[in-house]
């Protein structure tokens, strides 16, 4: 009992220091003094907490869930994009100063266990696992094993699991439980001709046989079964039919949940955002939102910074599309292909720690898809020269490749050389640098997070 007032004083002092800054430092300090602070602060939330993890789409999915729940009057506590380890979650709880109803946290896939053990969330959304930053996270199987431990742990015994039926590695996590809420895409008209080069986890985790795919929808996501019969895609209760992708603008689909069916248009492009929307719809369903609230929230979600956001550089529109791993990059490239005519690209490859020091992944991304459609590609960033070689071997004629490593000079070169809209494909730290640059030039929205 003596620890309680001490924690309260610590929280008070730290949250005053935290102010409105976007750092996870106050949370880290708090956790050093009170390692169980996340558990104790989140236990006070009247509606508990929900956690989201995935390789791709965490930030966008959290934004969608927020767009669904906030209009209902639920006061959400959520962590800022990127601040998704324990320190970031603790900081968010500190900042809230006890004024929130429900915690909504995106959590780094590698550190999920530690956060969930404390958070004991009401609902846990595990949306996808793709090859990503092997130098930081290790192999995909390692992450899957860690997630299995989370799912099997006593701290999630009361947690509603929300899983992607179309990702075999993720769907398999729920085999031993009977209350999993699965989501997936039923419409197979957008199926790819086969697995892409970057496809992962295509072998049954139980018997090692390669899965048979009846339809590949995105990376290794799709409709699959194991030939030995020990794993099949679960039937999703939240699903999309009749998917219609409209370039880099939006995506429409018919959403079904246990409550019924609605046609939904999400103002974010590509099949990957249909998956994000389904994940958000399923999590919101698990948290008690109505189908009307879900449909309305998805229709009005604003893009997170760099995720299909369009800004105007003078007269020229520039659409920012974050790329950070092969699966995500491939979906961005597929979405760009839906645009008409030739495409001007500003591609920025950094190798800072948050990007992954290893830039191998650009050879797994299918830049070949766009090679014949590019009017010009300006390569920038700390590894610009290697990105340029990737473009050349993807089939882009060398005379259409411009290399300007420094970001600001690269942006100006790309803008000067563009004939139509410019599409910027930055890696994570490049996207943050671009945000600062645009903000200095007065074209950034102040609410970008």
């Amino acid at each position, binding site marked *: 009992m003596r620890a309680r007032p001490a924690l309260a004083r610590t929280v008070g002092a730290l949250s005053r220091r935290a102010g409105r800054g976007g750092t996870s430092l106050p949370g880290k300090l708090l956790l050093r003094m009170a390692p169980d602070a996340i558990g104790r602060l989140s236990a006070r939330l009247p509606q508990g907490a929900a956690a989201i993890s995935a390789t791709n789409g965490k930030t966008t999915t959290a934004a969608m869930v927020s767009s669904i729940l906030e209009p209902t009057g639920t006061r959400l506590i959520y962590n800022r994009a990127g601040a998704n380890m324990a320190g970031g979650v603790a900081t968010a709880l500190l900042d809230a100063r006890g004024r929130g109803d429900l915690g909504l946290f995106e959590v780094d896939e590698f550190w999920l266990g530690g956060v969930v053990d404390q958070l004991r969330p009401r609902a846990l959304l595990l949306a996808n696992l793709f090859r990503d930053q092997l*130098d930081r996270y290790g192999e995909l199987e390692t992450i899957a094993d860690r997630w299995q431990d989370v799912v099997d742990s006593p701290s999630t015994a009361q947690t509603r699991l929300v899983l992607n039926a179309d990702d075999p590695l993720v769907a398999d996590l729920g085999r031993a439980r009977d209350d999993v809420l699965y989501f997936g895409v039923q419409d197979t008209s957008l199926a790819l001709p086969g697995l892409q080069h970057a496809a992962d986890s295509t*072998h049954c985790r139980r018997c090692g046989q390669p899965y048979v795919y009846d339809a590949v929808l995105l990376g290794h996501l799709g409709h699959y079964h194991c030939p030995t019969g020990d794993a099949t895609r679960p039937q999703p209760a939240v699903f999309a039919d009749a998917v219609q992708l409209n370039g880099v603008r939006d995506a429409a689909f018919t959403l079904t949940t246990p409550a019924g069916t609605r046609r939904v248009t999400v103002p974010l492009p590509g099949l990957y955002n249909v998956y994000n929307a389904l994940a958000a719809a399923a999590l919101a369903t698990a948290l008690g939102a109505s189908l009307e609230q879900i449909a309305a929230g998805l229709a009005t979600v604003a893009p997170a910074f760099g995720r299909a956001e369009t800004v105007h550089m003078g007269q020229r529109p520039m659409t920012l599309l974050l790329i950070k791993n092969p699966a995500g990059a491939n979906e961005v490239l597929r979405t760009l292909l839906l645009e008409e005519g030739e495409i001007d690209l500003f591609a920025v490859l950094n*190798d800072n720690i948050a990007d992954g*020091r290893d830039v*191998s992944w650009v050879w797994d991304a299918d830049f070949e898809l766009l090679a014949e459609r590019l009017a010009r590609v300006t390569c920038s960033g700390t590894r610009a020269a290697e990105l*340029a070689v990737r473009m050349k071997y993807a089939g882009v004629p060398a005379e259409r490749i411009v290399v300007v490593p420094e970001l600001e000079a690269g942006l100006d070169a790309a803008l000067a050389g563009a004939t139509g809209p410019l599409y910027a494909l930055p890696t994570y730290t490049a996207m943050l640098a671009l945000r600062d640059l645009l903000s200095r030039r007065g074209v950034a929205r102040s609410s970008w997070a």
Partner: protein
Amino acid sequence: MPQLRVCALYPDLMNIYADRGNLLVLERRCAWRGIDFRLQGASLGEEIDPEAHDLFYIGGGQDRDQELCAQDMLETKRDALAAAADAGKVVFGVCGGYQLLGHAYELGDREIPGLGLVDLRTVREEGPRLIGNVAIEVDLGDGVQVLAGFENHAGRTLLGSTAQPLGRVLHGHGNTGSSGFEGVRRDNVIGTYLHGPLLPKNIWFADWLIRTAARLGSLSQLDDRLEADAHVLARRVAGM
């Protein structure tokens, strides 16, 4: 018409570090020079004909997949690869593929037998994974040159008394983190931890592989300005 026939082993499983980039570089550079490039994959259960290919490529894989491949190699491919190596064909292993070339590698507390094409074995030791940009100095007969790439391996590869390293570590970890050596070379059997993929950023080595495997005296010059810049950058990030 000159020809380069490449056999990619387990392209569906041993591809973790974008190994297709290495194959793509070979393919494009052959095409630009009018060399007939053929690529065939050989996965689990498929036998290979040592006569039918000039270069055998083995990439890296996840632990579980690498173990599946190790077992399959012994059952269906070892004799053919040994015959190919003895006949002077190029056998090129990267990362996990490099470990498979040796007598054995350790996975947890188990020892998984390998091809035994070269005199080495890979063990686990206390200590971190060896991760980072790396540059090595090699001499394949045309004078000293540099290979630059990225390494990421838990295994420590110990060369036997009859094995020659591929090169000397200039920056980075190499085979063990302390031996000062990287990779292995036995005639045209080459193994290395450098991925990244390796060939796009070391275009001279891509051409050495093409020349050696296709048994061509020389290759026509290409416009390699972008590739030259990428090589300089890869060396620079590796600390040179």
